[in-house]
């Protein structure tokens, strides 16, 4: 039974696309057939983050409009076997997404993939609702910062009212919180909301904490999902997120102290 997972946040720039790319790649690294869809019609970027921007010919909207078939639009990742990308259209706008059209494409994808990751656009308008509507589960991406936390709570409200599961009185969308751009040092100094602060306010199960890291920028610069850089702290954190999502219990990673780094252990 395949699952549809929306990666959402309300606020922009918190790491939805980075997470969509990293999470989908992490699942595919386990050999699980996974597709990641860009719902940000008109402002597509998943292709860039995944490093396949020059291979886009047909897109999501073409498929909805019957201007091409799914196999023409799906881009197979060159690094990870069971990973595919469905890019958004860059020339249309969000109104090109219709419930009927999205349903049709998702139904077709369900036949081939175990996980369908929907990378939501920012905001709470049509595009974001289209991305979340058919979701079974949701990763809510939050930065430890007031505007992001407030917007995440708003999104939680929408998941409980605007999705198919809500409208059709099914079991609610299963929600997970993913805290990104976290700086333990700033939390220690009292300059940043802590993990406990955020979970206190949002009351969502925590799937993982991604540290603020230069490696995320390096990864997007080169079009490599951060989970392929398993040397980086953020890459390892995302791999742990995938493990936790799959029901495993990865050990807590201790940050290397300056001393152990000096002696190379």
């Amino acid at each position, binding site marked *: 039974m395949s699952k549809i997972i929306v990666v959402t946040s309300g606020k922009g720039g918190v790491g939805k696309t980075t997470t969509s790319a990293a999470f989908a790649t992490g699942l595919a690294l386990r050999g699980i057939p996974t597709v990641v869809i860009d719902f940000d019609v008109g402002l597509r970027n998943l292709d860039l983050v995944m490093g396949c921007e020059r291979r886009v010919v047909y897109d999501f909207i073409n498929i909805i409009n019957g201007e091409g078939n799914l196999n023409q639009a799906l881009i197979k990742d060159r690094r990870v076997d069971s990973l595919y990308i469905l890019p958004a259209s860059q020339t249309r706008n969000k109104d090109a997404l219709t419930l009927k059209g999205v349903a049709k494409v998702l139904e077709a994808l369900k036949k081939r993939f175990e996980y369908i990751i929907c990378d939501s656009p920012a905001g709470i308008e049509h595009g974001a609702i289209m991305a979340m509507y058919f979701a079974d589960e949701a990763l809510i991406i939050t930065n430890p*910062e*007031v505007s992001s*936390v*407030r917007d995440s*709570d*708003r999104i939680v*409200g929408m998941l409980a009212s605007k999705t198919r599961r809500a409208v059709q009185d099914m079991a609610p969308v299963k929600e997970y919180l993913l805290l990104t751009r976290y700086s333990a040092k700033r*939390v220690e*100094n*009292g*300059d*940043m*909301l*802590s993990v406990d*602060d955020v979970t*206190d*306010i*949002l*009351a969502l199960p925590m799937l993982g904490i991604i540290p603020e890291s230069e490696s995320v920028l390096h990864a997007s610069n080169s079009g490599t999902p951060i989970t392929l850089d398993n040397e980086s702290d953020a890459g390892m954190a995302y791999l742990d997120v995938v493990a936790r999502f799959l029901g495993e219990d990865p050990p807590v990673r201790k940050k290397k102290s300056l001393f152990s780094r000096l002696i190379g252990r």
Partner: protein
Amino acid sequence: MSFLHYFIKEEGPSSALIAKERLQIIVAHERRQRDGAVTTQLDRILPQLQQEILDVVKKYMKIGNEDVKINVEQEGKYEVLELNIILPENELKLRHKKVHET
């Protein structure tokens, strides 16, 4: 920032604590608006409920109109009806004695 600033610990709560408190208030408020139907109904009966509780307590002890406070708060997925009655101190002692006597 001056060099000295580095060594002087800033007074008052940390900015993270302020952020948390502000968020708790605004998020609770917005959740209440969001879950409109149920809450507006609760909000409507709240003043009447407060008056009736006040009347009942007044039967037994001397309290003022503002000594009964009633509030609905959102805690996670639950709504908590918070009731606060401030009892007059000497009245309490009196009642306490009576209980012991009987």
